């Protein structure tokens, strides 16, 4: 089974029916998988804070949401995370491509990578870091934890987890 299938299987098994995405090269396969699943309403967002608004609404309408985005999004969603998701105490699994880590080819991505964990820590957001493919075995437990505690939870997935960027 591909890692993309495994991730989306875990989403579906945890009752996630509403997924918003802002694309990333590393996330292309998992986004295709989300789009392909009849159990999931896939709604691409133009910006990640918009996506978090959609997820908040879907949750209040009775559907479990998730967001898929790059770590650069942490820079644009802090106000939304604290004044909406956390303030109203809503669950939000955030599957995040952790750009700017080992094997990154684009130097600019490193500038946000060095702030990513510090910002998540400052926001008291539970954070998990997938570095090897076997780390994804914990995804099911992380999703259960997210909907148990009604918090945004970050799952950082780096280039090593996704198998790198190919020949460079």
């Amino acid at each position: 089974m591909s890692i993309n299938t495994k991730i989306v299987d875990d989403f579906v098994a945890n009752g996630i029916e509403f997924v918003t995405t802002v694309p990333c090269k590393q996330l292309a396969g998992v986004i295709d998988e989300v789009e392909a699943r009849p159990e999931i309403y896939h709604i691409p967002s133009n910006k990640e804070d918009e996506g978090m608004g959609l997820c908040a609404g879907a949750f209040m309408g009775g559907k479990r949401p998730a967001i898929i985005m790059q770590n650069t999004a942490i820079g644009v969603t802090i106000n939304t995370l604290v004044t909406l998701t956390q303030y109203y105490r809503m669950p939000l699994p955030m599957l995040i491509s952790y750009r700017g880590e080992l094997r990154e080819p684009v130097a600019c991505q490193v500038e946000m990578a060095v702030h990513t964990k510090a910002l998540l820590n400052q926001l008291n957001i539970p954070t998990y870091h997938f570095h090897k493919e076997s780390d994804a075995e914990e995804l099911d437990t992380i999703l259960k934890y997210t909907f148990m505690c009604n918090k945004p939870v970050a799952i950082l997935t780096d280039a090593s987890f996704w198998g790198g960027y190919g020949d460079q």
Partner: protein
Amino acid sequence: MIDDQPTNFYMLGTMGLSSSIGLGVALAQDKTVISIDGDGSVLTNFGTLPTIANNVADNFILLIVDNGSYGSTGDQPTYAGKKTSLAAVAKACGCENVIECQDKDTGEVLQKAIDSKKMTIIVCKCDSGNIKLPVITMDPVVIRDRFMKSVQA
């Protein structure tokens, strides 16, 4: 004035996201959802209009109160009060039912939109200025909890 009721969800501090939250609620269930937003807020989250246009929820109405100013921060002018037409932008984004009306006609236009059972964007043109109202002090988790219970009812 609309009285406080459990079916109201008050977004207290996330300027721009009223339409996104409302669309999410509308897509997740069948009851009619009316998102009330300002022109300044829509300008803040312009990306919402293509998302709305391309994810049609016929139980969703976006009511934009367009007074051409940032009302909560001291009535500084917005571009919507100058050359930019939010109704034209919404149409260009692909929204199919867009109505611009004057403030005095809003009640009738809104009722027609509800009865049509078609996703509708209403741009209500009005003068700037606020009436004196207290700050909402209700706890956000209480707002969210009673809203969810009334959505489920």
